């Protein structure tokens, strides 16, 4: 079975075959033998050829998070249809709350022009204030929150329209 993944805006194809007692993975044209065993709910000891790694794995819908050696990798599984059109949601024309936070100040109004990297919203979380900036140059299309609101991670605060 071959899967297509997106990781940091790069697309990869990985083929995996379950053999009798091990898995064979083909990646970048190279074959690897995979042995694994479970350590805890989402934690596995994985031996790739003979390289040993301890890997944390989470699946949330089409998103897969993998942790090892101190880093978290976020991978999107894309079906072949998705693969052809690429991109998908998250067009870069919105400002999202990166974590649960409180809206301290909204610096722009609907219709205002903004430059890429220009601050648009000030949020507070864990006693720190942070400026959320415009991801690209454009116009403020809609402001979906008010000052003082408390928002969840991933809430879309402001949408932009391209110039």
């Amino acid at each position, binding site marked *: 079975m071959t899967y297509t993944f997106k990781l940091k805006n790069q697309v990869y194809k990985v083929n995996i075959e*379950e053999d009798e007692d091990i898995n064979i993975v083909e990646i970048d044209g190279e074959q690897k033998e995979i042995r694994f065993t479970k350590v805890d*709910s*989402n*934690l596995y000891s994985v031996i790739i050829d003979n390289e040993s790694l301890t890997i944390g794995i989470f699946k949330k819908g089409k998103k897969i998070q*993998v942790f090892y050696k101190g880093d978290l990798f976020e991978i999107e599984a894309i079906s072949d249809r998705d693969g052809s059109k690429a991109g998908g949601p998250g067009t870069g024309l919105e400002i999202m709350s990166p974590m649960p936070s409180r809206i301290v100040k909204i610096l722009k109004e609907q219709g205002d022009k903004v430059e890429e990297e220009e601050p648009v919203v000030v949020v507070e979380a864990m006693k720190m204030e942070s400026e959320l900036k415009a991801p690209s140059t454009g116009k403020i299309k809609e402001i979906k929150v008010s000052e003082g609101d408390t928002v969840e991670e991933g809430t879309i605060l402001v949408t932009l329209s391209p110039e």
Partner: protein
Amino acid sequence: MFKKILIANRGEIAVRIIRACKELEIKTVAVYSDADRNAMHVMLADEAYHIGPPKPAESYLLKEKIIEVAKKSGAEAIHPGFGFLSENDSFAELCEKEGVVFIGPSAEAIRLMGDKITARKIAMKAKVPLVPGSDGAVTDVEASRVAEEIGYPVMIKASAGGGGKGMRLVNSEDEFEAALRMARSEASSSFGDDSVFVERFVQKPRHIEIQILGDKHGNVLHLFERECSIQRRHQKVIEEAPSGFISSKTRKKMGDVAVNIAKAVNYYGAGTVEFIMDQEENFFFLEMNTRIQVEHPVTEMITGLDIVKWMIRIADGEKLPFKQSSLKIKGHAVECRVYAEDPTMNFLPSPGTLQYIKAPAGPGIRDDSSMYSGYEITSYYDPMLSKLITWADTREEAIKKMKSALLEYIVLGVRTNIGFLIRVMDDEEFKKAEIDTGFIERHPELLNPQDIDNEPALIAAAMIMNNTISGDESVNGKATGSNWKLAARKMALRGSNEI
């Protein structure tokens, strides 16, 4: 010696203090907010009292209530840790009035050093070099004028501030107004006081500080320096002792000066005199922290002294039994603050439930933490997961040990800065101690590296898609974290258990 001590704090520092008390055979009393019923400081203490809702202002900052618990439980002294009430002179005063020993300096010393402007005056009197800047709190107009006078870049700092809150670096005039507004706003929400002052920004500055220990009999010693130049958002991330930069001559000079400032306010207990240093080893007084500091462990590792135990003994009236000349530096120690935060998103905090956490261990490794698998990092408090400290004979070995230890650290359920810290340990400039407080900004590649080995991640993803392994058990409520949530929900349903 005290028979029972109340710890007016939470998190790893509360755990650290409880451990010190246990080793001194002193009973410990924990206090906790609704959000902390499950916290490790509650589990480790001999007694635990509920004091209010999660917000600090309604629990950990309630002076009267905490003193009431101390009296009710029979605690003879209160250790305030850091943050919360640790530098609150009126709390220290209230303790004294109520006959409970405050484990820290006198209310007077806290007051004098707590106001940055007064502290500057004391330092000036003690002939300690100061960074040029405004002579105290300023109005918006004055601030702008002073900034012009001393020349950009300038720093705006909250008069009542600390820990980087209400602090802003301004590179040019056109950024000044916005920065001033945000600094005042943060200062106001953090300290209830929006006054700020302005001072010159030292280029490529190092943050070097001297640990002080004084007793109630007039003896003040210093335990050498710590270098804390690796900072993000003006908060220390990596600290070490000794500094890999300063000469022993500078070390002695800084130590003497720090002792002088401390003596000027009849200081006792543990304290830290912070300096900013340029690349020519010129140093300027920043402030004095009149409490135990987050990064105290590195000093403990190189001196063999237990600073928290000494704070308690000093509060009990004990004399320091050693002299400055008998203190020696042995080896080198590095501390990394492991945070639940996302380095790729400018170190944004990443609250959530720790589905799995496994700390490194072994020779020369110290993990000061209050975390466990299933614990929830809430957004009420600081998202620090652990202070990981390594000690070795040399700086080089301590750094290698730190890298190796960080590679062993497993944290699932939240984002962490572990990968970033590993890359710092591998950085050539860091290894050569060519660091300053702008280090992280200068090295964006450490936050979001491009040349990282992602093959295992893709293989793991393929295995999960192939249902060879299952990665979503947490969703089914089987994981520890979810069990915890269930318990928490049950707790909530049962209502809080106020005293």
